[in-house]
């Protein structure tokens, strides 16, 4: 017995000693590189990296590109559907300075991190893009420290879904919407819901409330937190009060996009904040009870003149600093930005275009009837904080907003903690 224990301890001790020994011998190399100025004119085959191609839209586009660029073939590297896994995959390939990740599709909230780590080719000088046709808010998501690092590729904004059979005129302000909650009550249904489960969607909804009330999460430099303000408190209080008095049903604290959609389609919600993807599903799902009775409007604002400030979703296309064929990569990015490609994205994958004029295209509106409303949403949108510490910042927002909405913390305390946590994130 004793011998066995001793054997075990000896094993562990020697394992530990060995580990320490090798640990001390190890050291990490590092140092700056000037890869930004390399390979800028070289051409050749490249790889385009993107998350799961849900509607089989990118493959035909690449085939189309390859047909006209026999010497600059694009290979498609498809990542998983999970945002976190896409992020990790990119981080780890950038760290390995992988020359085969040429053009990468990055979520808007990662752009700053990748730029600050020096992994993205700045889109300046020979790489400058014409951004005049693009929606200004989308360009902001690709801009870090005043430099454009990634080209907007697709966008997304929040919409207010409502029941036009019960509410003939959609509310323009938050207060108007809450007044309409009496209608919901008389029909024995929930009034309003967004996404309040503790995940990225909560950051989106919190930021929307705070921005709508005239507050902000970070100052315009994208780094300095500015959330402990009366305006921000007003915004967060809107959510907290509505949840407390039941205008937002209690189960909404578990809602991600899908649960809200299910409830709305089942006729259990009068108003819902959600993304445009719900539109086609709610009008076509066999089980949807709101096929003909639903409609959309811009998010409610503080006053009737300004609609609510949506957070922006979407992706940007960036060129890896380690790419071996940057000239080809730039051409491919321009191809992704082109009006034709944007049109294809919109019609085949329901991705919101980044080119302003497409929102007024009659044929496109016929296919995607929500486009004019979405345009209002995106024109009034505020990007989520463009910070290289986004994972920590979103954690700070989620955790404290969640506690506030559930009533575990006062709004003031939550915002104070949020401010402190965002500060700690950047230190």
């Amino acid at each position, binding site marked *: 017995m004793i011998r066995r224990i001793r054997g075990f301890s000896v094993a562990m001790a020697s394992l530990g000693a060995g580990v320490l020994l*090798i640990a001390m011998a190890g050291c990490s190399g590092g140092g700056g590189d000037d890869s930004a100025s390399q390979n800028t004119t070289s051409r050749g085959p490249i790889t385009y990296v993107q998350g799961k191609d849900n509607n089989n839209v990118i493959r035909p586009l690449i085939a189309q590109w390859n047909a006209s660029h026999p010497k600059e073939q694009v290979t498609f590297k498809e990542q998983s559907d999970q945002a976190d896994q896409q992020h990790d995959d990119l981080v780890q390939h950038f760290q390995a300075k992988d020359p085969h990740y040429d053009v990468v599709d990055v979520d808007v909230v990662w752009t700053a991190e990748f730029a600050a780590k020096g992994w993205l080719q700045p889109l300046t000088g020979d790489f400058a893009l014409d951004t005049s046709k693009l929606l200004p808010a989308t360009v902001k998501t690709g801009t870090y420290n005043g430099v454009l690092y990634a080209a907007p590729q697709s966008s997304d904004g929040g919409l207010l879904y409502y029941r036009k059979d019960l509410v003939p005129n959609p509310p323009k302000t938050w207060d108007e919407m809450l007044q309409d909650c009496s209608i919901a009550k008389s029909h024995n249904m929930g009034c309003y819901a967004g996404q309040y489960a503790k995940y990225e969607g909560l950051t989106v909804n919190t930021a929307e409330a705070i921005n709508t009330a005239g507050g902000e999460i970070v100052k315009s430099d994208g780094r300095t937190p500015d959330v402990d303000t009366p305006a921000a408190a007003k915004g967060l209080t809107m959510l907290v009060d509505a949840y407390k008095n039941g205008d937002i049903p209690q*189960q909404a604290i578990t809602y991600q996009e899908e649960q809200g959609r299910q409830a709305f389609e089942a006729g259990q919600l009068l108003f819902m904040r959600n993304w445009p993807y719900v539109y086609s599903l709610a009008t076509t799902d066999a089980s949807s009870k709101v096929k003909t009775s639903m409609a959309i409007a811009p998010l409610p604002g503080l006053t009737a003149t300004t609609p609510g400030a949506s957070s922006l979703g979407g992706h940007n296309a960036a060129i890896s600093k380690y790419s071996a064929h940057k000239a080809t990569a730039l051409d491919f990015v321009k191809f992704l930005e082109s009006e034709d490609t944007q049109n294809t994205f919109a019609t085949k994958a329901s991705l919101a275009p980044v080119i302003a004029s497409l929102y007024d295209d009659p044929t496109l509106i016929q296919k995607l009837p929500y486009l004019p409303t979405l345009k209002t949403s995106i024109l009034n949108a505020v990007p989520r904080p463009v910070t290289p510490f986004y994972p920590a910042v979103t*954690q700070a927002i989620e955790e404290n907003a969640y506690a506030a909405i559930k009533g575990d913390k006062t709004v003031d305390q939550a915002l104070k903690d949020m401010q402190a*946590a965002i500060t700690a994130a950047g230190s």
Partner: protein
Amino acid sequence: MSVTSGVSADDKAEQDKAAPPPRNRGSSLRKGEGKLGLYLITPTIVLLAVVIGYPVVKAIVMSFQKDPGLDKATGMFVSGGNAGFSNYTHWILQRCGTVSCPPGTLGAEFWDSVGTTFFFTATTVVIEVILGMWMALVMNRAFRGRGLLRASVLVPWAIPTAITAKLWYFIFAYDGIANRVLHTHILWTGDQWASRFAIIIADVWKTTPFIALLILAGLQVIPADTYEAAVVDGANAWQRFTQVTLPLVRPALMVAILFRVLDALRIYDLPAILTGGGGGTGHATTTLSILVVEQIRGGFNSAAALSTLTFLLIFLVAFIFVRFLGAHVVQTQQRQQKGTI
């Protein structure tokens, strides 16, 4: 289970020493043994060194380096340099820079997630052992339907945990079957205790059958005449259970518990998919493994320190447990040998 093997090998060694060898092992066998043994274990050790040793070492190296910080002037990251023990103190003392980590930072969640991990471990293991014991007793008594029992008991065990988690996520949805059957409106993924119990229920469903099978195997080696003797002695069912069954299955039980404890301390798939670590104040179901994965996106080196701490903690528990378990195994065997049962 290597522990058990160790015990049996040890006991053999002890027997060898105590009494004249019960069997005459040829000297030719002994001579070659040392070398042969080393040859045979070398491939295993080499493989383990590659798949576990290398990552451990690398993680420890990383944990003593600072994560890159931002150069305020250029807005670009610069490498952090040597960190000393600052990555460790960040977690253990919950210090973020010069201040104590405010709520909403991962640093503020370290001890909470240690508590959550241990809470999950303790509750799931206790429930699983009690329920598993009962299931094993039922299965041991069953004459008909034993095949059906065994097959159905293996089903939860065979389903991949990731799929189990998705299944329970679906069952515990607000509009899901759980609330419908119970006629409740419980926020299974939002409420502090409901979310914890959702995970415990899912884990109990998934793992109890496994425990039950281990205990059943222990039960089946108990000779029937032991019971009959107890019956003749007039022992009632409870006495038979506590005085015959329990001591005899204890070795099997202890090994099962050890492995469950080590497994439960690493719990990741279930809370990650079921609640995303949320619930309650926002991190009611964040276990150590989830915290590591969350931190990986906020800095590798800090994550490496956290995973090293996690490993040390699990190791500590295992060490204490092996001591505790070992003592009981020996006690049980001595009692058995003396025939005091």
